[in-house]
C-alpha cells in the first residue's frame, strides 16, 4: 500500500488565487537535491513564502495564520512546467491532501494521483465561489466526497461534481498505486517486450 486511503475529506482551505502557478514556484529547483522523499514541505512555495534572508513574507497566504486546512485552492493552470514529482511531494508533505483548481497541468495532475493527493477540477464559476466563500470566512469548510465525486461548499450547500477515472478512483479509495498493478503483469509485459523490434 503506497499511501493513505482517501474517501471523504472535510476541511477548511488555503486560497491561492493566482493563475499558471508553475512547479518552479511550488518547489524551486535548488531544493531538488535530496535522495530521499522527505522534508519537501518546508520548501513548498519557498520564494513566495520566505525572503532571501529566510524570514517569512508575512503577506503570503501560507504565513497567514487565519488560513489553514488540508485543501489548497489554486488559480487556473495549476502545476504547469516541470515534471518534478517533488512539487506534488511538497504539497503532500506540507499537509495538503487535495488541490482544487479550474484547470491542472497534465504531469502535475498525474503525479498528484500517483502519490495520494487528489486533484479536483471545478468550473471557473465554482472556483470563484470557493475563493469568495474563503474570503468571507477563512474557516469555511469544503467537503470532498471521492466516492460520490462531489465537492461541496458546506456553508451554502453549493455543489459540483468532478471527474476521475474509475481505475484511479479505486486506487485512491484503497491506497493502491500503479506499481501494485504493474508488478502483477510482469509475465504479460515480458511477452510483449519479446515482440518489440528494438
Amino acid at each position, binding site marked *: 500500500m503506497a499511501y493513505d486511503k482517501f474517501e471523504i475529506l472535510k476541511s477548511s482551505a488555503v486560497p491561492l488565487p493566482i493563475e499558471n502557478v508553475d512547479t518552479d514556484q511550488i518547489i524551486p529547483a535548488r531544493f*531538488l537535491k535530496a535522495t530521499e522523499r522527505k522534508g519537501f514541505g518546508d520548501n513548498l512555495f519557498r520564494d513566495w513564502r520566505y525572503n532571501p534572508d529566510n524570514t517569512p513574507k508575512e503577506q503570503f497566504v501560507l504565513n497567514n495564520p487565519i488560513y489553514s486546512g488540508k485543501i489548497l485552492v489554486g488559480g487556473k*493552470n495549476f502545476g504547469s512546467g516541470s515534471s518534478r514529482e517533488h512539487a506534488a511531494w511538497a504539497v503532500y508533505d506540507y499537509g495538503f491532501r487535495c488541490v482544487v483548481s479550474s484547470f491542472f497541468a497534465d504531469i502535475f495532475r498525474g503525479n498528484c494521483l500517483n502519490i495520494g493527493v487528489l486533484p479536483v477540477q471545478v468550473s471557473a464559476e465554482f472556483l470563484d465561489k470557493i475563493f469568495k466563500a474563503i474570503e468571507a470566512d477563512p474557516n469555511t469548510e469544503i467537503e470532498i466526497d471521492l466516492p460520490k465525486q462531489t465537492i461541496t461548499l458546506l456553508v451554502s450547500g453549493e455543489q459540483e461534481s468532478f471527474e476521475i477515472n474509475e*481505475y484511479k478512483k479505486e486506487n485512491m479509495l484503497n491506497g493502491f498505486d500503479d506499481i501494485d498493478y504493474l508488478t502483477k503483469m*510482469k509475465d504479460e509485459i515480458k511477452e510483449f517486450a519479446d515482440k518489440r523490434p528494438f
Partner: protein
Amino acid sequence: MSSTLFDKVWDSHVVRKIKDGPDVFFIDRHLIHEVTSPVAFLGLKERNNSVLFPGRTFATADHNTPTINQHLPVEDPLSANQLKALEENSAEWGISHWGLGHQNNGIVHVVGPENGITLPGATIVCGDSHTSTHGAFGAIAFGIGTSEVEMVLTSQCIMQPKPKKMRINITGELGLGVTPKDVALFIISKLTTSGATGYFVEYAGDVFKQMSMEGRMTVCNLSIEMGARGGIIAPDEKTFEYVKGRPLAPKGADWDKAMAYWETLTTDEDAVFDKELTFSATDIEPMITYGTNPGMGTGISNNIPSANQVEGGESTYKKSLDYMGFAEGEAMIGKHVDYVFIGSCTNGRIEDFRAFASIVKGRKKADNITAWLVPGSHIVEAKIKEEGLLDIFHEAGFVLREPGCSACLAMNDDKVPAGKVAVSTSNRNFEGRQGPGSKTLLASPLVAAATAVTGVVTDPRTLL
C-alpha cells in the same frame, strides 16, 4: 480505419487497455538523470523489486553538474550525493551510465539522439518534462514523475490515458533571422501555456519539412510549454540520415527491418485530429518573452501588450510584469541586459552554436554582459572546436564552458543573481528559474548573440 502517426506509435505500445482507466503503455527507451531517479530506486528496493530490463534504461548526469572544472570533485555535497546515487544505482542494476567526464556525457535530451538511443516509432520517457524533444524523430516521448520512473524500472511500463490529438501546421517559408526557437515561442504565445494541455501535438507543413533535425528537436522540446504532453514530427529522409550509423542505432539487417517499419510512420491523409491549427510562416518574426511564463512572448519589434490584450486574469498579468520590472506598452528592443545564456536541451546543439557564431564573428562581447556558453554535450563541444567556432568565440571575448543543464534551471553554480536580466536560449522564464530573483527573457541563439554583442535586447536582423 485511417490513423495518425501518433495513433500508430501509441497503439502499438499498449500492453493492456483498462476499462475506464489508463493504458498499460510499454516504454522502449528510458532515460534517467541524477535528480529525479534516486527516490525511484529507493522505492524499488523498499518493495523488493528489481529492474526488469536494465538494457532499456540509460543514465546520464546533467541537471546539477558544474560547467567548469568537471575533472575536480563536485564541491556541493548535495549534488555530489545525487551524482553518486546515480552512479551506484546504475552499477547495481547494470544500467549504462555516462557520468561526469564520460565522453558521451551531456544533457539527457542531447545525448539520447546523438548516440542513437532515440529512434523513430519508439516510446521514450524520462523524469524530465523536456523529454518531448525526442518527438522530433517520430517517437512518442514525454516527461514523467518519479513514481513513474519507478514503474518503468520495475515493469518497463507506465499507466497513461491516451492524450487527445492536435495538429499544428505552419505553411510557407521562414524569414531571415527566424529560427525554430522563434517558431515554438510564436506557437506558445498563440496557444498560451495551457492551450495544448491534454493533447499530443503533431507538427506538420512546409516549415517543419524544411527544418533540420536540430531545429525539430527545439520545437518538440518546447511542446510542454503550451501544456502538451509531447510533440511529434513524421520521420523522413533527414531523420533516417541522422539516425543511421549512430552507436546505439540498429545495424545491418536490423536497420533494414527498422526502416521498413519507420517508413509506415506517417499520418494517413484522411486521419482526423481533435484540434487542428494552421499558421503562416510569414507572420513569425524573431521572438522574445517579456513575462514569467513562456506564453508571454511577442515579436521582438513589438511593445509589451497591455493586460486587456491578453488572455487570463489581469492581476496575474500585472504580478508577472511587476516581477520583471516592466510596464505595459514598453518596447522590448533596447532593454538593458546583464547575462546571456546559450545552451540547454532547447538550444544547446551544434546548430545553435553555429547561429550564435554567425553573429558574434568579428564583433566583441559587450562589457556589461556576462555570457555563459554551455554546450549540450561533449560531442557538441568537440564539434564546436572542430568547426573552428571556438576560435570565433574566443576572438569575440567569449569562453566555452563544459556541458550540462547549467543556468537553465540553476541547480549548479550558474545562477543569475537577483534582479539581473538574462537573455536565455533555454525554455522557462518562470520567477527565479535561473536563480532566486533572476529575470529571464527567452529567445533564440541569434537574439542571444545580437544581445551579447550590443548589451541590450537587439533584433538580430539588424546584424545579419
